[in-house]
């Protein structure tokens, strides 16, 4: 797969062990609620990355999955008295359902049009959240009980909840990794590369894209559902386009088409927002500046640049040039595309 950085298995093993250790010890160093927020956003960014980086479709509406799952979970847990685990799963399922519906519309278009359609769908969801009675409008659903996991383990304590969230997020990341490195992932790569050719080989490409979109939505929903349990509140912020934008920012800063880019991106963005909390306008300015700087100077994102650097080094060391963490290539209207357009997409 194109996204596997080329440095050796051993490096990876070491990195994974270090990462696992850091995850386990982190709540003793940092504020667990902050860490949980970070993990939820990392998962959101990763789910978005699955679409942008591996399907080549930039969704500008991932907040609709994140946020509506938040509402669904909060409602299920608070009003229906669901177990928190079940509540979060319910949230993810709702997100997947929304993903399947909006996806069916959106994937028929590619490139910028796809982005705009997802943005608009998300906005529709936002207005529904704003106006419908069960979401509580501007007030949101507040005082969501954290409850007991499977009726046994009380999640009231931040530390306990932290480990539950951690395990879930790690599992979700594993799933993403698996999707990317699966037969299905292989087909996605092919479709992103050359869609007409994939069709001519007999792939019904829209079904693959739709499944990817639905999966991505479900994962974003998982993140959103957990967030509402952690913070005990589900609100409009999580369905607003600002959140979609932030998720994207995380992906870009960390590096699209890389597995850990979203994590690094979430770390940077969430920390930044945290440090600047209380100065809404400063957050805007800094986020904006980060967007500009990343786009102008290092489009591959932090992890992407590191990968590229490592790849360059290994290449000097005479290993086959297997890596490419190139920025995503979505269909474009360049000269090549217009020449093929008539042949490929009548």
């Amino acid at each position: 797969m194109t996204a596997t950085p080329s440095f050796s298995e051993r490096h990876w093993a070491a990195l994974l062990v270090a990462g696992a250790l850091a995850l386990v010890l982190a709540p003793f160093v940092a504020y667990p609620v902050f860490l949980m927020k970070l993990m939820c956003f990392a998962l959101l960014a990763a789910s978005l990355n699955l679409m942008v980086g591996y399907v080549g479709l930039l969704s500008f509406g991932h907040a609709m999955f994140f946020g509506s799952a938040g509402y669904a979970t909060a409602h299920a847990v608070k009003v229906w008295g669901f177990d928190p685990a079940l509540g979060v799963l319910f949230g993810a399922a709702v997100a997947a359902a929304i993903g399947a519906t909006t996806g069916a519309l959106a994937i028929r278009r590619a490139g910028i049009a796809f982005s705009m359609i997802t943005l608009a769908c998300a906005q529709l969801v936002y207005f529904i959240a704003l106006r419908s009675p069960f979401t509580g409008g501007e007030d949101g659903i507040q005082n969501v009980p954290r409850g007991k996991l499977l009726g046994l383990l009380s999640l009231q304590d931040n530390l306990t909840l932290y480990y539950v969230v951690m395990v879930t997020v790690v599992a979700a990341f594993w799933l993403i990794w698996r999707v990317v490195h699966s037969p299905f992932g292989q087909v996605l790569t092919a479709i992103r590369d050359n869609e007409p050719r994939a069709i001519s080989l007999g792939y019904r490409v829209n079904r693959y894209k739709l499944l990817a979109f639905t999966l991505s939505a479900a994962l974003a929903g998982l993140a959103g559902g957990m967030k509402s349990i952690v913070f005990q509140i589900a609100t409009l912020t999580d369905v607003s386009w600002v959140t979609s934008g932030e998720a994207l920012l995380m992906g870009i800063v960390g590096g699209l088409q890389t597995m850990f880019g979203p994590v690094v991106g979430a770390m940077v963005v969430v920390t930044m927002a945290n440090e600047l909390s209380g100065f809404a306008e400063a957050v805007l300015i800094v986020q904006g500046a980060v967007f500009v700087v990343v786009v102008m100077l290092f489009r591959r994102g932090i992890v992407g640049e590191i990968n590229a650097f490592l790849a360059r080094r290994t290449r000097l060391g005479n290993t086959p040039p297997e890596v490419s963490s190139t920025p995503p290539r979505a269909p474009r209207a360049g000269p090549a595309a217009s020449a093929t357009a008539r042949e490929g997409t009548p």
Partner: protein
Amino acid sequence: QISDDMVRIGLMGDLSGPYSGNGGPGSVLAAKMAIEDFGGKVNGKPVELLTLDDQNKPDVGLNAARKWLETDKVDAIVGGSASSIALGVQTLMKEKQKPYLIAGTVTSDLTGKACSPMAFQFLVDTYSLPKAGVQTLIDKGIKTFFFVTVDYAFGTALQTEATRFIEQAGGKVVGSVKHPLGTTDFSSYLLQAQASGAKAIVILNAGLDLSNSLKQAAEFHITKGGQSVSVFGMTINSVAAMGLETAQGLNITVPFYWDRDEASRAWSKRFMERNNGVVPTYIMAGVYSAVTHYLKSVQAAGTDAGPAVVAKMKATPVNDFMSKDVKIREDGQVMRPVYPVEVKTPAQSKGKYDFYTIGTAIPAEKIFRPLSEGGCDFVKK
């Protein structure tokens, strides 16, 4: 004993959004002044002020409050912008047993259904605001009403209470329309209100929303068919924003007006010197009042432990430039008198902020919701 040798007060408000004129940076300044006037120390321990822009978003406010309490060792939270946030913070403060000094957010649920033994309402609420307002309109012979209401806890509460008062007085609400917080164009809501034929069109929102809706009401000559436009609650910054031309003749009630007496003028003068000459709203005055009363109580109690301070606060009458010997009721309501005012015409106004003609004080018992009707669970019947 003072926990970790420091009294930390968190001030939360809309520092940049549509409500930033009501409280916002002005409230921060008021809190700072209160701490300075107190000497910056309680029982020899420094007082620190933390501030937060809640952006009128419940999640932002709530998350920050949680962080304040769990990691920053904040001892009390003061202020408030949108009622939606306050309701969440209220629960949290109850859970963490820390005083919540509300000045800037007004839903009456805070002392009613959602009441908390740790909470105080230092100003007016959505019960007291329409109470006098409805009566004034009914007295003018107005029988039909239409509401333009902001769509969240504050607006909902205000409309519910107002409707009750109107119906009790034999009036009728012929319709209402809700708009989201931070709307800029009210023309379609206003035209709808106009088409309803109601004699009074009542705007139930605040801050920027309020000045926008009133300005547009004037632009569209909403009152040309003999209808009137009224509001029940308003802070003085909105009057400044829309101008007397638009605001003249409105009747509202306020717990504070800068030009009411010597004490309020003296304090307001000091405030304006440090606030680019901009006049304090009653919310800012309320923040000052709340912080001062809190510090006094910490000093008297000799500790900053929540329950002890709360007990002390409730036992001590509030005394400052705003109010003399005002009691705090069991449910947390500060029982201060409020003043009916009428906005002056441009001709009547003699100075930059000479906005109101002030009437005689209405005693607290006449305007605040009786304890028995609030439905607060911990209040002994």
